[in-house]
């Protein structure tokens, strides 16, 4: 189970790789710049990046996927394992009703 739990750590790593200003400790000053906001918005932008680029984590879970899917999400992507395609940007960024 720990082998699959590790993806959560990859996730944190990838957020920092994309937005490495967050990893620059000396400029991360509490009450001086909105650093909590910066991290939250970076996570949102990271999610958008996931939607567009299909990076490491969905690929990891997509390996040898040959099961009968309960719900096919998207018939157009036959070569991709359908199960774990991240949502499209439109699916992900929807307004709150």
């Amino acid at each position, binding site marked *: 189970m720990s082998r699959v739990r590790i993806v959560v750590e990859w*996730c944190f790593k990838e957020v920092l790789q994309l937005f490495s200003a967050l990893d620059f400790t000396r400029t991360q000053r509490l009450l001086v710049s909105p650093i909590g906001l910066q991290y939250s918005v970076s996570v949102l932008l990271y999610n958008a990046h996931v939607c567009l680029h299909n990076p490491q984590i969905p690929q990891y879970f997509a390996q040898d996927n040959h099961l009968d899917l309960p719900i096919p999400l998207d018939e157009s992507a036959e070569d991709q394992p359908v*199960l774990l395609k991240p949502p499209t940007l439109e699916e992900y960024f929807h307004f709150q009703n």
Partner: protein
Amino acid sequence: MLLARLAWPHRLSDMHLQFGWKPERVSRITNTLLHFIFDRWKHLLHFDSERLTPERLAMYSIAIKEKNAPLDTCWGFVDGTLRPIARPIYGQESVYNGWKRMHCLKYQAIIAPDGIISHLYGPVEGRIHDSAVWTKSGMSEILDAHAYAPDGSPLQVYGDPAYGINEHLISPFGGAFISYHERE
């Protein structure tokens, strides 16, 4: 411009050269944009119950099961992360984490196997324990309301041993060696 600001330790004066605007104006623009994006999309970081339907959660759990994981009722992974910050002059002890020995802020995230961070809570002070953050975030109530398979059976998120176990949260046994019964 915001992406440039977050991408690398750009100083505001560098961005002044790059964009041709005064540093204070660059700062104001990026901060306004941060607020704008966050206000508009913050419901996505809470728990997006419109996208994370029971069917989708069930698919996540199947995907995790397919990776030879022993559990088949787990749809995501929860963990806290510590982001180090510069030492504040006032109130530094409240953000000091004695375990990692640094000043930091803590965030809690749930990751679904499609790579999307479907829940982010934070920042909270770095001295608070993971399970206290979990209680504070009110995540158990949210999962009580939403995290079910289509047939009504509860689905769990998987944490590390700090989190404990309940109907919607599951974690391994502590310690480096696990006994035979625990392994079962």
